[in-house]
């Protein structure tokens, strides 16, 4: 028993990834044997992962950073996993949010997908989550590339699985642009490997300091390719073109996880590499932070602007994601304590908010079949729970106090002033106002709109199953909880920021 515990404790970084991969490949096997076990097992995989995350968190909080060497090969040769506070933050965010989305999916999928592919959906879903977890904890360039590709293929998979025209087309577009992104990243990795001879982040970072003197152009090109690759993946303006189609046409749980987590994991990886691997001197050679700030502001501004004119609720949410990822990059670009805290915290906060908003949009579509914003008039009376949590999400998006969106915006705002760039404070405030323009009318129409006489308002409303309402309520409660008691999350994030 104790040996089993030791194995679990010692190997939990690998086990957490292996769990997802293993369960993922079990799904097609189970499909032909016990079909109704798939959903339960997928949830079981998440619970196991949560357990390992808990162990890792406990280890990090008691003994500091945990490192794990794959196959016991020490770092310069073998693949290394590093779990620090930042990784713990990401792991918790991913496992908790994806578990909630999965619980929602178990009911929603039957309505959106053909019956014979639903177990394949779990395969792809678990692969995606496993790849994200791998991305969060890996400390190796090539390993990162492999996880990025796994994540890209499975992400395209959970879009295209719906098999209607829009989904397949969106998925193809995503696949091509994502291939461009990973291509750029791989080329950049090759260039870094050329000058450093290392694939491990830590060793590469050490070797890059002297290498910058010798081969500055090489490293600059690598940085440029690298930034371009991750910006495509994270859908920052102007490389966001794939996102609105992909996130709006996909099944609702897919949209939730894509908008809530997948784009964030690339922002996280970019942040980690930018601050930990590239030598500090490079930032005096190119104004990369200023470029990020400008792109982030454009992203915030145009994302909100496009969102205002959308008629489809999921498309609107997708454009809003572009704006919100801008906040995360804004935090990266500010590169000071408060700004980074705000940016990283927004990864978590926005994961909760956007997952919840997409799921509630999914619940509306499930119950009524309505996607058009104009037809949502008076829906609040029929579906008070769904529109209630939607209202909470909308308020959090705007940054009303007592919701978690306020806390991250507050820290970002402090960061802009600390950095002496009050212009970006204006960007934050203006974008909050733009959020009001596209979120509040939906809520207002839903609750206070005159129920019109048009026949489509009389469509029957299906009852929302418990499996779909529970994740919504938990996410909404989380938004309010972390808005009122942000203390512990902030402490975690501030420790995470301290490593930079």
């Amino acid at each position: 028993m104790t040996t089993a515990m030791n194995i679990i404790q010692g190997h939990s970084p690998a086990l957490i990834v292996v769990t997802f991969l293993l369960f993922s490949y079990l799904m097609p096997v189970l499909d032909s044997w016990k079909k109704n076990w798939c959903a339960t097992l997928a949830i079981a995989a998440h619970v196991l992962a949560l357990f390992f995350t808990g162990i890792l968190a406990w280890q990090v909080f008691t003994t500091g950073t945990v490192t794990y060497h794959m196959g016991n090969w020490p770092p310069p040769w073998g693949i290394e996993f590093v779990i620090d506070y930042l990784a713990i933050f990401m792991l918790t965010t991913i496992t908790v949010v994806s578990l909630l989305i999965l619980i929602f999916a178990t009911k929603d999928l039957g309505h959106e997908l053909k019956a014979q592919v639903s177990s394949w959906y779990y395969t792809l879903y678990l692969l995606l989550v496993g790849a994200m977890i791998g991305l969060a904890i890996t400390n190796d360039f090539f390993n990162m590339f492999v996880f990025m590709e796994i994540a890209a293929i499975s992400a395209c998979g959970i879009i295209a699985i719906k098999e209607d025209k829009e989904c397949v087309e969106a998925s193809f577009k995503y696949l091509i642009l994502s291939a461009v992104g990973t291509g750029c990243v791989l080329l950049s990795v090759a260039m870094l490997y050329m000058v450093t001879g290392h694939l491990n982040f830590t060793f590469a970072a050490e070797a890059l300091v002297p290498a910058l003197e010798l081969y500055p152009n090489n490293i600059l090109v690598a940085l440029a390719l690298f930034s371009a690759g991750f910006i495509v993946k994270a859908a920052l303006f102007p490389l966001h073109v794939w996102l609105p189609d992909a996130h709006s046409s996909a099944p609702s749980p897919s949209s939730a996880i894509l908008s809530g987590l997948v784009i964030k994991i690339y922002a996280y990886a970019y942040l980690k590499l930018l601050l930990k691997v590239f030598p500090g001197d490079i930032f005096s050679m190119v104004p990369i932070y200023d470029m990020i700030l400008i792109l982030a502001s454009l992203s915030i501004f145009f994302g909100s602007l496009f969102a205002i004119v959308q008629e489809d609720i999921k498309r609107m949410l997708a454009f809003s994601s572009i704006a919100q990822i801008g906040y995360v990059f804004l935090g990266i670009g500010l590169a000071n304590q408060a700004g980074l805290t705000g940016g990283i915290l927004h990864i978590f906060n926005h994961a909760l908010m956007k997952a919840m908003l997409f799921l509630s949009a999914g619940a509306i579509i499930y119950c009524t079949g309505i996607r058009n914003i104009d037809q949502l008039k008076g829906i609040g009376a029929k579906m008070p729970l769904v529109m209630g949590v939607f209202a909470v999400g909308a308020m959090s998006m705007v940054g009303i106090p007592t919701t978690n969106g306020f806390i991250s915006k507050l820290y970002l705002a402090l960061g802009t002033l600390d950095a002496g760039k009050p212009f970006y404070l204006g960007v934050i405030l203006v974008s909050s106002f733009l959020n009001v323009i596209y979120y509040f009318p939906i809520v207002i129409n839903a609750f206070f709109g005159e129920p019109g006489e048009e026949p489509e308002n009389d469509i029957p409303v299906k009852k929302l199953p418990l499996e779909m309402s529970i994740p919504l309520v938990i996410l909404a409660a989380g938004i309010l909880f972390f808005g009122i008691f942000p203390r512990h999350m902030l402490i975690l994030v501030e420790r995470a920021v301290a490593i930079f």
Partner: protein
Amino acid sequence: MTDIALKLFDNMYYLVSMVLFIIGFHTMLTHSNLIKKVIGMNVMDTAVFLFFVSTGYVAGGVAPIIEPGVEQTYINPLPTALILTGIVVAVSVTAFALALIVKLYHHYGTIDAEEIMRIRSTE
């Protein structure tokens, strides 16, 4: 002039891989034929692989199969090994992309991106 030419010749692999990368990138983004986009993607991937593998090449080196007692220069095997994985990944992405193209053809009856856009806008 000859200097530069010589230098370029020395780094021919890098030069060629960059040219290939740009060709692939250009094909991928400008052609409206979806199959050509996938071909462009493959060319781009190949360029990256060539680049990566050539970073491990040592002039005059041989494959690192160690014979006891023979003193030889070996090439760096690590990039080669990595690129093996990279090729597998590229193949699977290609397969997936082609499968999606088949689906698109079923839905729209064409594999031209502009044509598909036109059909979508008229719907």
